[in-house]
């Protein structure tokens, strides 16, 4: 086949500053949309690349066919008998078919097959030019991209993430003409907002990024991030320092500049006396500056690097400005820090009475005291010293009343730990306070001390009970009180803790610590179900099969570690043919019992006269034996063993079904057999509801 002529395609959406976090994903969505459009139009490109900066999203498609390949269209119409009347005139059927195909009847052909003859449309449709197709389809594609947020501007009806100010759409040298966002597409781009505000000609699209580079725009986000990292590292090492910034900060900065330059600035060394998290939060979270550390000691230096979107004519003035922004923030922090430390940490407890925990749930002081009262019970579970946990519980919310935490709410806990340690609290207590909010996210670590785990656990237990009782239960879209996160944290701590924790009795006990007016009983079932759901999603995340999870959660207590042990055992055996057979038998028992119950008559307590049949006797004996063994296996939480014992019941059960009629005509005999099955079912359900296991579709 000869090479068809191909083109390079460029689309650039010029915008006002897009949110830093959304650019790459949106550029990728643009590339995906274009790829699927080209594919549908039989114009697939060899390669598609996307670009993003704060002021543009672009996609470049290489080797797009200049026209669609021609297409053979064949459609079968009515049979000849129907298509023409006996005088050979075209009937309505033939005319209709021709009309729908957009041709005259005379242009249709005849298709001969052994079954008969039909009218047929047979046409070679020439491909349309890519330019024509794109100009018709791009507007819709561009205005229906998946946006994280949408807004309107001016008099425009179309929505985008921020206002769109120019549109480049080119196929090599040609402009693809269309209107979108109230703009006509054009052939020229624009450069950097300050360095090159004018238009940028794009003579050859394959040199798109070079053309923009000369207009002071590094259009490739990955390339820009590389440059930023490189510049930052180089500047840091000039000062004998290393840059200390999370990857996320680099990504965010990349979304804030088109032409990165770096500048080093400093603050007064006396501010280094502030707790490090305060400095980091001020620099990184508030200002997006990159803190510097001494290379050898990793000690924080009173210096930082700012990544700018400007190569300033007078960087000294910018540095002066940056330093002026940081100073009052740090000064404010220092003021609070010094004042906070004039009081011993424990004295802040008296201020907690004025801090509301949540509507209807009283004050933070009351919350702390509930945690203290819970401490002896929780301490035992986590094998920590009760006094220690009580102390940590008493102090854990005190930092909420300090000036520094009011200024830096994101540092709650961390600053509390610091203040506690400065006030002479033990290491264990301080550490527990500082890690009490862990894990905050799904990938966060758990608190790294037993006392910390115990405190974080108790705090969440209390929050969840109170939150549900006060009607703050999360909905699909809203979770103002952070209960989903709290539940997930609680489950994770329970699941990964050294000892197995049954949440059910703990929920009950912790609920009693709230005043009686708060109806914690009423909301308990909803909370229980909510926790089961969080546990379910944790298990699925960790790779458990959905049916195994369902089978176990149907019967197991709300005890994550125990649930996990059952799941492990069941997962190992689930493809075992006997388990599959047992599952089927289990369903059969359930059906029999259900039906029997429907036509139930009062149980006959008189011993039946008829002796046990032999299969019945065998099953009875096997069941008694298995019950004993399983009870002791369950006691020891040896679920594989329990399951193995269960499996051994299959044989006698099968024989019982084969030779014994359960629904015997004699009522007392019938009851005896039903009772036997019911005991069997109870035994099954003591491990998992194996009836919930999915049968493999291909028999093994």
């Amino acid at each position, binding site marked *: 086949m000869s090479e068809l002529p191909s083109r390079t395609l460029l689309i650039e959406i010029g915008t*006002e*500053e*897009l*949110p*830093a*976090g959304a650019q790459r994903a949106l550029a990728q969505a643009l590339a995906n949309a274009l790829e699927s459009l080209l594919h549908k139009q039989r114009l697939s490109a060899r390669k598609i690349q996307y670009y993003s900066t*704060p002021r543009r999203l672009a996609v470049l498609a290489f080797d797009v066919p200049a026209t669609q390949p021609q297409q053979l269209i064949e459609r079968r119409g009515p049979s000849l008998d129907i298509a023409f009347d006996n005088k050979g005139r075209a009937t309505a059927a033939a005319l209709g078919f021709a009309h729908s195909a957009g041709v005259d009847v005379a242009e249709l052909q005849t298709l001969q097959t052994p079954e008969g003859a039909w009218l047929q449309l047979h046409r070679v449709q020439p491909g349309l030019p890519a330019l024509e197709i794109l100009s018709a389809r791009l507007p819709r594609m561009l205005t229906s991209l998946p946006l994280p*947020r949408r*807004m*309107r*501007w*001016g*008099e*425009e009806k179309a929505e985008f993430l*921020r*206002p769109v*100010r120019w549109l480049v759409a080119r196929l090599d040298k040609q402009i693809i003409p269309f209107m979108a966002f109230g703009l006509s597409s054009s052939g020229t781009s624009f450069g950097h907002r*300050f360095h090159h505000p004018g238009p940028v000609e794009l003579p050859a699209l394959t040199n798109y990024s070079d053309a923009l580079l000369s207009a002071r725009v590094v259009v490739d986000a990955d390339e820009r991030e590389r440059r930023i990292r490189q510049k930052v590292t180089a500047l840091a090492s000039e000062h004998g320092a290393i840059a200390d910034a999370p990857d996320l900060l680099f990504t965010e900065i990349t979304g*804030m500049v088109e032409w990165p330059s770096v500048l080093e600035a400093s603050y007064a060394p006396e501010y280094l006396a502030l707790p490090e998290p305060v400095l980091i939060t001020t620099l990184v979270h508030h*200002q997006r*500056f990159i803190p510097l550390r001494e290379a050898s000691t990793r000690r924080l230096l009173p210096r930082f690097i*700012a990544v*700018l*979107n*400007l190569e*300033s*004519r*007078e960087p000294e*003035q*910018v540095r*002066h*400005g*940056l330093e*002026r*922004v*940081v*100073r*009052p923030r740090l000064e*404010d922090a220092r003021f609070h820090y010094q004042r906070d430390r004039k009081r011993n940490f424990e004295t802040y407890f008296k201020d907690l009475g*004025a801090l*509301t925990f*949540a*509507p*209807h749930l009283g004050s933070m002081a009351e919350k702390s005291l509930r945690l203290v009262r819970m401490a002896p019970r929780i301490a035992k579970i986590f094998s920590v010293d009760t006094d220690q946990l009580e102390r940590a519980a008493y102090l854990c919310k005190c930092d909420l009343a300090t000036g520094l935490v009011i200024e830096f709410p994101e540092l709650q806990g961390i600053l509390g730990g610091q203040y506690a340690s400065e006030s002479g609290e033990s290491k264990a207590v301080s550490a527990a306070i500082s890690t009490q909010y862990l894990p905050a996210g799904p990938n966060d670590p758990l608190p790294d001390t037993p006392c910390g785990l115990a405190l974080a656990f108790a705090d969440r237990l209390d929050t969840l009970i109170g939150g549900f009782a006060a009607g703050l239960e999360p909905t699909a879209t809203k979770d103002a009180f952070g209960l989903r996160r709290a539940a997930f944290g609680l489950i994770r701590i329970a699941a990964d803790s050294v000892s197995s924790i049954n949440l059910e009795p703990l929920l009950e006990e912790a609920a009693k610590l709230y005043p009686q007016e708060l109806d914690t009983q009423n909301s308990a079932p909803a909370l229980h179900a909510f926790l089961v759901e969080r546990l379910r999603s944790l298990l699925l995340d960790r790779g458990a099969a959905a049916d195994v999870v369902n089978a176990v959660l149907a019967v197991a207590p709300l005890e994550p570690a125990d649930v996990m042990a059952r799941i492990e055992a069941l997962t190992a055996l689930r493809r075992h043919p006997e388990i599959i057979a047992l599952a089927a038998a289990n369903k059969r028992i359930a059906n029999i019992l259900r039906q029997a119950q429907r036509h139930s008559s009062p149980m006959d307590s008189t011993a039946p006269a008829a002796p046990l049949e032999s299969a019945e006797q065998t099953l009875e004996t096997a069941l008694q034996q298995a019950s004993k063994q399983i009870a002791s296996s369950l006691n020891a939480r040896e679920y594989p063993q329990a399951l193995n014992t269960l499996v051994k019941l299959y044989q006698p059960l099968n024989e019982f079904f084969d030779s014994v009629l359960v629904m015997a005509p004699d009522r007392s005999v019938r009851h005896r057999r039903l009772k036997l099955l019911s005991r069997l079912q109870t035994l099954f359900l003591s491990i998992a509801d194996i009836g919930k296991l999915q049968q493999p579709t291909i028999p093994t």
Partner: protein
Amino acid sequence: MNQGRPRTFQELISRLKQYWSKQGAALLEPYDLPMGAATFHPATFLRALGPRPWRGAFLQPCRRPTDGRYGKNPNRGQQYFQFQVVLKPSPEDIQTRYLGSLEALGVDLSIHEIRFVEDDWTSPTLGAWGLGWEVWLNGMEISQFTYFQQVGGLECHPITGEITYGLERIAMYLQEVDSMYDLIWHETGQDVLRYGDLYLRNEYEQSLYNFDLADIQALSTRFTAAEISHRKLLSAGALMPAYECVLEASHVFNLLDSRRALSVTDRQRRILQVRRMASGLARAWIESEPSI
């Protein structure tokens, strides 16, 4: 064009007025009732509703009682000045026009770094939200830039672009002082009048009132009275006075808040009440507008 930096606070204000006047904005005066932000000025809130084009600019003193620090914090006070520009429909070159205003203040854009940092704005009491940015000058926030999407619970069309300058911040930057009370408000020869001369005492005494002295019972009564009047005035078709009831309720709410007189639920309830008032007014305003 470039006259260097304004040396005084009042010159800063007059430069902005001059600049925006040349951009076609009508220069209005402050509204004469207390409000938490210039967005409450009828020239913003009411003009953002409905189809009519509008360009206006004005200075507005704003009160945020909880931000008071008895005059002890150099950056924060219970009263401060906003300069606000509202352009409806938001013009295509609105950002360039804004940058022009910074140049009019003597900010050289080839020296100083200006950055538009994502910032979404919501006003729970006004039932309004918009998308836009904080504008940073060498890392310092100096303006808020918002495209209103909804006002008083109603979708906007056309869209109003709102630019709000925090004047104390900008002036401190331009005058290179570390406390807003040291700002030069006006000078003639050797005579220097500072911001503190005008407002430090006010700041202290108003903080006393806001935090310690305001009569909670009386405030609560005022809130209820504003709500009742609002309802009556709305049904009587007296919308401007009804709108003033929204301003009153909102300000009284802020005072109750700074007196720590509101429980969390109470707070939420009152925010919803003010929003209902604002939304009711916005609807009535739209319905009545063609008849004016």
